[in-house]
């Protein structure tokens, strides 16, 4: 819902803190998750994820969540699906070029990012969206990535 998602952006700092704790907890649960099987868990977890994030952020379930990099404003709500910042068409009043009644997703993202602790994450260049991941759980993917990184820290 538009109103809720704009509210969430205004409280980006809270959601950032909350998510960080949540992610740590999930990572702790990794051995259990592994036992049950990530593949088996994906569907139910994705459902739950869709419910929560859909309500709060109008999440589109791209499966590679970037909310922490985009000021808690889901960039998949941008009609051009931009993952790296606002297009040149943002209206002078800050609304979207394509949907004149909607606030530009990236106006919100910029605002949200600046109240977050990791306010510089919005400056990182995001990879192209992997459309094959659409509908899968980004939470579980993140846990596996974190665990993998812990086990084989990348050189550099």
């Amino acid at each position, binding site marked *: 819902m538009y109103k809720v998602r704009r509210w969430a952006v205004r409280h980006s700092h809270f959601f950032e803190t909350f998510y960080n704790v949540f992610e740590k907890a999930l990572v702790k649960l990794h051995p259990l998750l592994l036992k049950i099987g990530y593949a088996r868990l994906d569907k139910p977890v994705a459902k739950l994820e869709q419910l929560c994030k859909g309500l709060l952020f109008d999440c589109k379930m791209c499966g590679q969540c970037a909310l922490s990099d985009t000021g808690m404003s889901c960039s998949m709500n941008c*009609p*051009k*699906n*931009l*993952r*790296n*910042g*606002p*297009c*040149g*068409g*943002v*209206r*002078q009043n*800050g609304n979207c*070029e*394509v949907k004149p009644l909607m606030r*530009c997703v*990236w*106006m919100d993202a*910029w*605002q949200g990012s600046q109240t977050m602790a990791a306010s510089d994450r*919005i*400056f990182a*260049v*995001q*990879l*192209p*969206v992997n*459309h094959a991941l659409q509908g899968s759980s980004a939470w579980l993917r993140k846990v596996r990535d974190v665990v993998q990184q812990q086990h084989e820290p990348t050189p550099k």
Partner: protein
Amino acid sequence: MIFHDEPIPGEMLPVLAGHSSAGRLERVLRAGHFAVTSELSPPDSADPQEVYVRARVFDGFVDGMNATDGSGANCHMSSVGMCALLTRIGYAPIMQISCRDKNRIAIQGDVLGGAAMGVSNMLCLTGDGVQAGDHPEAKPVFDLDCMSLLETIRNMRDKGEFLSGRSISSPPKVFLGAASNPFAPPYDFRPHRLAKKIAAGAQFIQSNYCFDVPRFKEFMARSRDLGLLEKVFILPGVGPMASAKTANWIRNNVPGIHIPDSVISRIGGAKDQKREGQNLCVELIQELSEIEGVSGIHVMAYRQEEAVADIIKRSGVLQGRTPWYPGRDLKLAGE
């Protein structure tokens, strides 16, 4: 300026050390000259002569011309098609690639095809939304965004790899450009977005129409603070407005164009509005060329292409230099 190794039209110049392309535009910029580029609007026609006629009006005044890719989301001859025609006779097009109409498979194919035809400059754009053009019912693609597009082409060039990781036997040697719009909010994010584009591979930048010089100066100052000016060539965009009415229409209907009221009232108050629009354009070019970090100018004179030569001449920014065009050297030798 005549290069000692001027090519036979359609053949490539050698790639100089430290350059990423064989192109003239990159050579001019890296040599520290003030570069001029313009926008070539594609015909609604399958007749190659229409492209050549449109290109010829810029002869001797531009270092590169943008072959636009469905700009404003309107359908015209494709940018790849125009580039094929232009490179055949030695012109140096800047091939625009918009993310709106093609997915990553089509785009990477076009990059190889374009480079094979001799396109040395590519400009990566997100593209206007389909609602802006004559086919609002079309499916918007936006598989990549301008940032990931830049990165994709840079990797094709520097790593010799497709996005999939599959290798390319002969990488495309291209000079990479991107657009920037300092005149759209959020203003304080714009310089950071420029930084991202540079990080993703942008080597030159063309901006949207610049009418608001103080805003542009502010943008450049912030970019300088971020250390960006040494890393990229910036060519602000300018263009003559035919009348106050046109300017008003453009302001209200073309996405991302900011024209201050003062500009509209100045043009509207003149006896010859068209001429006043051109005068303003000349003044803007002169003013912008003085700003630190400005390496050239990008002239967008939609439906007034024939005025570009005069505007450039009056601005004096070429400082006596005659950019290459087919037949230039014969002509200069004859004079």
